[in-house]
């Protein structure tokens, strides 16, 4: 009985604090195995209470991180919804997988990589900025810069010719030889 309780407590400790404390949890188990049952029961209850995201900032942080990672993952049975927005059974379970993996000490990148390895890059709502995908990121900026340069050149040219009072004359000078001949003929006739 004493030993079962101790084991339960160590399990809870591992669950709350993550796998990093596995060694210390085993120590706790050994220690608890030799101590009085009352002493074991009390902290076990306390640990249980601390599991709520409402009271434990670590749990709340994990929830927030899980939601953040999950919001970048596409719901497989919806159209353009993240697994956070979706109420589909599969999405909710995927959200739990995200949280469990994070709780087990995986980084958000590792969690994303897991889903990409199973569902393909399609599962990411935002394409990764590498390879051919870079076009998606670079093209709008490139178009903006190109448009700006084009507009600037046009405006400069426009400003240059516009400020010159002899603009019309300069334009006339640019008439082709044939046009000029036609113009002269027309003036002569009138």
């Amino acid at each position, binding site marked *: 009985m004493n030993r079962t309780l101790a084991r339960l407590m160590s399990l809870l400790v591992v669950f709350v604090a993550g796998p990093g404390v596995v060694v210390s949890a085993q120590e706790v188990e050994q220690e608890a195995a030799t101590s009085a049952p009352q002493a074991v029961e009390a902290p076990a209850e306390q640990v249980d209470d601390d599991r709520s995201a409402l009271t434990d900032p670590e749990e709340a942080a994990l929830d927030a991180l899980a939601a953040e990672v999950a919001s970048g993952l596409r719901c497989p049975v919806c159209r353009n919804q993240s697994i956070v927005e979706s109420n589909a059974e599969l999405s909710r*379970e995927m959200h739990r997988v995200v949280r469990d993996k994070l709780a087990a000490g995986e980084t958000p990148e590792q969690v994303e990589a897991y889903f990409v390895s*199973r569902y393909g890059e399609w599962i990411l709502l935002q394409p990764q900025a590498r390879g051919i995908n870079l076009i998606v990121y670079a093209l709008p900026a490139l178009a903006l810069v190109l448009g700006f340069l084009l507009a600037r050149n046009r405006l400069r040219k426009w400003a240059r010719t516009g400020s010159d009072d002899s603009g019309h004359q300069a334009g006339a000078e640019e008439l082709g030889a044939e046009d000029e001949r036609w113009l002269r003929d027309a003036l002569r006739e009138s």
Partner: protein
Amino acid sequence: MKKKQLRWLLPLAALPVLWLLYWGMGRDTYVLPSPMAGLQAPDFELVTFEGDTVHLSDLEGKVVILNFWASWCIPCRQEHPVLVQTERTWDDSEVVLLGVVYQDSRANAERFLAEYGGEWTHVLDPSQRTAIDYGVYGVPESFFIGTDGTIALKKVGPVTWDLVRYQVDSLLAAPLTAASATGAGGAP
């Protein structure tokens, strides 16, 4: 003069846009890509209706058809006769057909099987963790797994008899893939 030189740029700039439109419109948006083919099938531990535990690793050396299905799924009814034929065609020692019940209860699945027949093993995946591990979108989805545990094909939607026969025959005919062939060492 400079303007004339640049004139050909306009249609040229339209080319990638036209190509993108052509590619985008010619693509079937309902076809879902899977990166799983060619990879090692993830191992699982699932429980049959009878309460026995099945690991994929227990089935190594056999061709495995992992079929995710549900009693509420209409295309599953459509493909069921093909699976019945699959079970009849190959022996258990060569080809294992394993049904994974997806988002469904054991009672519903058993009622379905009583109505449509089939004697192969089914396992339950109540947490859907195995389905997620296999990148399942919906049902039916079937994975053809070679004797060395490599996924040869993931079929989304109902399987046809031609597909099953071709896949199983080729997996049985070529049991030695690169990995297991090198493992065999100096085999002639």
